[in-house]
């Protein structure tokens, strides 16, 4: 028996595949492990060229490797995949040894599939980890939010570049001093208190404080932060909301200014009316005394005229005060109100005038109930219906259509009549003005439309007019829901 065969026989129980390959590339001898791992019977193995067992991608590599080793007596192992009878790919480490006195070589193949797999999965994990890490790193570096880790001693230990961008300090500068140094002096106490909470394990949401930039400008930050139990490190994310705050402050300032201006205006109206009313009240009483004294007919006429003038003046001032009062005193409580009921109430109030003019009021409320101020809604109905009655055409019986419908997020209320109409080309911009009248009607005070416009606008709505002389007038009111 040849040595090599003895060698193989001795290694029957070896886990490695051991074989002798002859010059023609056929197995001469093989241990049983071949059958165990590759599923071929011994006879099969001896009847096919060994290369057919090699993964087709590895065949030329295997051939070259074997040749090189046979020529140079290099015994370095190399990796080649074999295909089992079932088609599984199995990684082997091949060791080729020339057998001096025989043609052919000794081939030992170690199954390294497991090892190879393990290695590749570790590699894959590593790659995935690196990728994840890079993504996190990118997220950290590119974030517009300010991200930080700080230690229990009150120093920043990690900062993303946004910090330097926002505060103007270098990262080192920011890490060299306790972070409280960079907090606005007025907010330090709050910040300390808030930071202390974290050691109880509280996660901070929406804590707001101010930092100062290197140039001393205020930066407003909204914080979310969590402490790690075991290290006491705090992970924080802050958003720079300075722009929004500035905007808010600007709006607030404008609002305050407006409120002050409005108050001023109100006071002005009261003071003016007060200062005017005192002498007017006196004129009233004095003319009364005059009337009671002996007067000539001419003097009597003058007294009458003075009295009338004083009355008009007094009334004007009362109206002016009423208008000012709209803005504050009237019941502004918003509640659900039925349009139909409001209409009926107002009709009752105007019943005399309705009978007199034989007016017809047609309603079609698609939206029957709205949230509004009861006083304002009544005022709208009263003013618009009584206007329609006042300025009806003598040529036809007045018809007033009132309708409501929902358009997007608002309710549209329409009052339409067939009355005298207003020449909008002439009066267009004055229709809703204070004490504007457009008809030769002694009772017209020119207040109704002015008042309802103020009321509607006070509740963020709008009113528009459309009118044609001797055809009628249409008012469109938009009520914000």
């Amino acid at each position: 028996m040849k040595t090599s065969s003895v060698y193989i026989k001795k290694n029957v129980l070896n886990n490695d595949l051991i074989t002798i390959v002859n010059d023609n590339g056929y197995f001469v001898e093989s241990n049983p492990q071949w059958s165990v791992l590759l599923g071929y019977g011994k006879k099969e193995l001896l009847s096919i060229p060994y290369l057919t067992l090699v993964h087709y991608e590895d065949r030329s590599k295997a051939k070259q490797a074997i040749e090189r080793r046979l020529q140079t007596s290099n015994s370095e192992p190399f990796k080649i995949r074999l295909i089992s009878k079932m088609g599984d790919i199995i990684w082997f480490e091949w060791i080729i040894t020339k057998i001096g006195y025989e043609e052919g070589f000794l081939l030992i193949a170690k199954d390294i599939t497991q090892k190879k797999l393990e290695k590749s999965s570790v590699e894959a994990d590593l790659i995935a980890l690196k990728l994840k890490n890079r993504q996190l790193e990118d997220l950290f570096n590119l974030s517009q939010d300010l991200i930080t880790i700080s230690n229990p001693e009150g120093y920043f230990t990690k900062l993303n570049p946004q910090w330097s961008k926002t505060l103007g300090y270098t990262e080192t500068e920011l890490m060299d001093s306790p972070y409280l140094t960079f907090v606005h002096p007025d907010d330090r106490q709050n910040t300390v208190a808030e930071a202390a909470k974290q050691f109880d394990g509280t996660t901070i949401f929406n804590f707001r404080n101010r930092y100062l930039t290197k140039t001393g400008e205020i930066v407003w930050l909204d914080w979310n932060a969590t402490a790690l139990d075991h290290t006491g490190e705090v992970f924080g994310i802050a958003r720079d909301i300075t722009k929004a705050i500035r905007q808010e402050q600007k709006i607030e300032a404008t609002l305050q200014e407006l409120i002050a201006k409005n108050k001023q205006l109100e006071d002005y109206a009261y003071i003016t009316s007060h200062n005017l009313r005192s002498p007017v009240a006196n004129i009233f009483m004095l003319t009364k005394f005059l009337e009671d004294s002996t007067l000539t007919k001419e003097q009597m006429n003058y007294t009458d005229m003075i009295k009338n003038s004083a009355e008009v003046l007094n009334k004007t001032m009362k109206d002016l005060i009423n208008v000012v009062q709209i803005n504050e005193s009237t019941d502004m409580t918003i509640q659900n109100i039925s349009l139909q009921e409001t209409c009926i109430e107002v009709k009752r109030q105007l019943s005399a005038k309705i009978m007199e003019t034989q007016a017809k009021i047609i309603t079609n409320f698609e939206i029957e109930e709205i949230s509004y101020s009861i006083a304002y809604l009544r005022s709208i109905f009263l003013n618009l219906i009584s206007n329609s009655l006042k300025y009806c055409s003598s040529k036809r019986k007045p018809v007033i259509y009132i309708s409501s419908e929902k358009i997007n997020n608002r309710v549209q209320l329409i009052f339409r009549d067939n009355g005298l109409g207003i020449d909008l080309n002439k009066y267009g911009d004055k229709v809703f003005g204070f004490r504007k009248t457009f008809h030769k009607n002694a009772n017209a005070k020119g207040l109704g439309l002015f008042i309802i416009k103020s009321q509607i606008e006070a509740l963020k709505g709008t009113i528009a007019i459309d009118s044609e002389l001797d055809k009628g007038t249409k008012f469109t009111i938009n009520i914000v829901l």
Partner: protein
Amino acid sequence: MIKENHILCLIDDDNIHQFIIKKIVHKLSPNQKLLVFSNGEEGINFIRSTIGKIEKLPDLILLDINMPVMDGWGFLDEFITITPDIKKEIIIYILSSSENPTDKERAKKFELVSGYLIKPINEEQLESLLENV
């Protein structure tokens, strides 16, 4: 009927209004006693100085709000401090041309103010006021 032994008091800086009130009061009751002061300080000084003489203190005060030196509010604040010493019931009405709701609200906060009248006040109003003293 108006009781002539009652004393009426007007505190108002407006000369013409003083004249008007005098005239109406005279017309209603020619012998009615009427004290007139041009501002709150004059009014409070008089009351302080006559505090013990019940028969000389007014029964009804008509008080204007806007006045120089001491306005109506100032008068009321002072008046409150001396009320424990006044052994007479004195009725006070605000008589002002101010329709400012702020003023009306402020007046309501004074318990000793019986009402808020707006100028001009006519004969009938004044008559009923005097009758109710």
